[in-house]
């Protein structure tokens, strides 16, 4: 194992000085007794358990519900940095939405030769049923999570686009609630932008995407696969916070060309469905015939323009890492501007020269499956054994088009609270973006994921990563 490259620490400069964004926090921190902080740390866990912020792990009976580790040192971003980041996100999200529209209509970007056709032809997330259809308000990606990593003072990169069903927003909200409950004084000393109105913004943004024929106030429902889904807590939480019904497929039925839910007083029309089930399970008539999670015939209602499905079916194309590698071209094609937020340099193993480079430099690179997610099926060259690298090489050689490679970035670090004091750990950031016909709305903050192990670059909760409260300072 080689030492990770020297990296940017968000709290302290290389010389050990506290950066301006962290000054208020550090002053407060220095006044606290370690014993008190230790106690607060275990209080936090109790708080999460009590409120039930857990995620389910499949196939583990005893530890059926687990907590994602929470670190009580906030990750702090100053207002100027945030402004620049949000401009980049807004540009990127608009481009993603325009790309989706184009891909399911005239495909100008392919005609112009900027993106190869095979990219989506081989993509399982591509849905022929969506061709020629425009969702209400022209919005495909109602809720997007853009994963960012940082390597320097103003160097943010996009690591991934999550346009299918980005999750984790309940952690953004509950992490803040927990921090405010534990350290009320801190919030009187450091002015932090609020995140707690996210559910209201979400409800508003979804309602603005209701189908044109909606009469009265749009009825919004959250569609969940059920209580055994790993993110059920979040589904229930968001529905509750929005004042929307939390429905399962069996609660819905198509009646007279509308999607209706079974209420205690009969079937009632649903105008907007914030679905947390995958495309495949939405409609057994159109997709997976074995699905019991979905609603037979819902795609017909959708195509007739009588219900909004958020995110639109078929947007999973954006999550593809091969598409990701074309995002600079995509942003430029639809916005006419250079991307404000750069991609991480990416080699597509489907291309001969890139493949040769990747195979030659495997021990230095991060290699990911094109369709993979959750930190599974990837190789982190510098922290892998020779055997792991050799095994992965065989996989790439067998199916090069399945992989992309990126340099191992010197990800920024933030301090976490440990028994022996503060210690730097690598972090990333997932801001949550809401898209409605006339607005891109970005909640100031997001979900900071942190690798809890020293030196580790893997922040995914499925791989032992934790989360932090994320502060955007007020101007």
């Amino acid at each position, binding site marked *: 194992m080689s030492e990770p490259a020297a990296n940017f620490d968000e709290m302290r400069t290389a010389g050990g000085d506290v950066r301006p964004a962290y000054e208020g926090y550090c002053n407060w921190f220095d006044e606290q007794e370690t014993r008190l902080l230790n106690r607060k740390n275990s209080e936090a866990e109790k708080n999460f*358990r*009590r*409120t*039930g912020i857990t995620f389910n792990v499949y196939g583990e009976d005893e530890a059926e519900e687990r907590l994602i580790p929470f670190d009580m040192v906030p990750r702090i971003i100053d207002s100027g940095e945030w402004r620049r980041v949000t401009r980049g996100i807004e540009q990127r999200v608009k481009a993603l939405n325009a790309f989706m529209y184009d891909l399911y209509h005239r495909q100008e970007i392919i005609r112009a030769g900027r993106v190869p056709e095979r990219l989506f032809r081989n993509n399982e997330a591509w849905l022929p049923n969506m061709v020629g259809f425009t969702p209400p308000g022209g919005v495909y990606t109602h809720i997007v999570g853009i994963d960012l990593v940082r390597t320097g003072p103003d160097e943010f990169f996009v690591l991934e686009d999550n346009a299918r069903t980005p999750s984790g927003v309940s952690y953004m909200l509950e992490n803040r609630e927990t921090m405010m409950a534990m350290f009320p004084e801190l919030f009187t000393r450091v002015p932090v932008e609020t995140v707690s109105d996210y559910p209201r913004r979400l409800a508003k943004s979804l309602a603005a995407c209701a189908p044109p024929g909606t009469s009265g106030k749009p009825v919004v429902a959250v569609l969940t696969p059920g*209580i055994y889904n790993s993110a*059920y807590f979040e589904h*229930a*939480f968001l*529905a*509750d916070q929005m004042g*929307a*019904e*939390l*429905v*399962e497929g*069996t*609660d819905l039925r198509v009646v007279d060309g509308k999607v209706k*839910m*079974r*209420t*205690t*007083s*009969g079937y009632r029309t649903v105008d907007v469905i914030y679905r947390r089930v995958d495309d495949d399970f939405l409609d057994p008539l159109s997709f997976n015939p074995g699905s019991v999670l979905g609603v037979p015939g819902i795609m017909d209602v959708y195509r007739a323009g009588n219900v909004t499905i958020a995110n639109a079916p078929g947007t999973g194309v954006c999550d593809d890492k091969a598409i990701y590698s074309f995002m600079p071209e995509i942003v430029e094609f639809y916005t006419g501007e250079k991307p404000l937020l750069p991609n991480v340099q990416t080699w597509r193993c489907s291309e001969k020269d890139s493949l040769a480079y990747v195979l030659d430099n495997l021990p230095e690179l991060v290699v990911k499956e094109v369709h993979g997610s959750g930190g599974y099926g990837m190789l982190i060259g510098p922290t892998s054994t020779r055997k792991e690298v050799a095994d992965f090489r065989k996989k790439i050689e067998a199916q090069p088009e399945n992989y992309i490679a990126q340099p191992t970035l010197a990800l920024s670090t933030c301090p976490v609270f440990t028994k022996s004091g503060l210690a730097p750990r690598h972090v990333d950031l997932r801001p949550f973006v809401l898209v409605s016909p006339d607005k891109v709305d970005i909640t100031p903050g997001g979900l900071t994921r942190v690798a809890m192990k020293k030196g580790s670059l893997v922040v995914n909760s499925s791989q032992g990563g934790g989360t932090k409260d994320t502060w955007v300072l007020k101007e």
Partner: protein
Amino acid sequence: MLGRTANGLFWMFRYLERVENTARLLDAGLRMALTRDSVTAEEEWRSVISTAGQKRGYEAKHGTYTGVQAWNYILRDRENPASVTEMFNQVRTNARLARNAISGEVWEAINESWMEIRDLLSRPVGQNHVGEAIAMVRRAGTLAHGAMTGSMLRDESFHFARAGTFIERFDSTSRILDIKYYLLLPSLSYVGSSLDTGQWDTVLRSVSGDRAYRWINAGNIDARGIVEFLVLDDRFPRSLAFCQSALRQNLAALARIHGHEGRSNELMRQADTQLSSLTIEEIFEMGLHQFLLEFMASNARIAAAIGEDYRFLR
């Protein structure tokens, strides 16, 4: 609200009531067994298990009746679907299903109790901890009901929850009476009885009615009085008359909210008329057992009608 959510609420509170009643039953049995010789104690545990409706499961597993076996079976046996831990899992699962129909306070009351009960019952329960376990279960019910009273909107969710509580409580009091009815026949009740008043005391304790009964009857314990108290006294919150009257109000509120009455209201009215016209003499005349059978069946019909009226399942 969704029919499925209403169903979740209804069952969440039915299970909560059932778990609480099981704890009361256990408490009364425990006390009884402590004051008896070992032969009678064995008899008492047999009676507790059968009142809880767990005789078949218990006897498939154990050949004898001892306190430790009985309370561990009732509290924490994984193979016993009516054990306290399994039923509390049901309470919590239904609370998760109906999560956006209950307030955060109710949810936290349930979730916290669930964690405590699960921890305490993760190991076999010895003599020194059984009281603590029972107290914890009863506190769980008190917490949840308190949180509900103090924080929930009086909309249909409230009334579905309450309906679940009273349907279950009616059933529970009826079953306790039915199992013990042979002890409460009027032929056995004469002035200056040397009969076992301890048994009657147990009946009262298992519905937490011993204190209330003493106050009302100034210390006179007789079978007729106990039956009258548990069936017809609408001041006592676990009597059949009280449960029925509370349930009638909840169903009336639901009908008001929905703008029309359903079959559940009709059945409720019939049961109500029937019960309020009966005197204790008439009940003994028709036979306590027969009376209880009829009213338990009517209670079950009302429960089913609520589910149909409000589309719990389809």
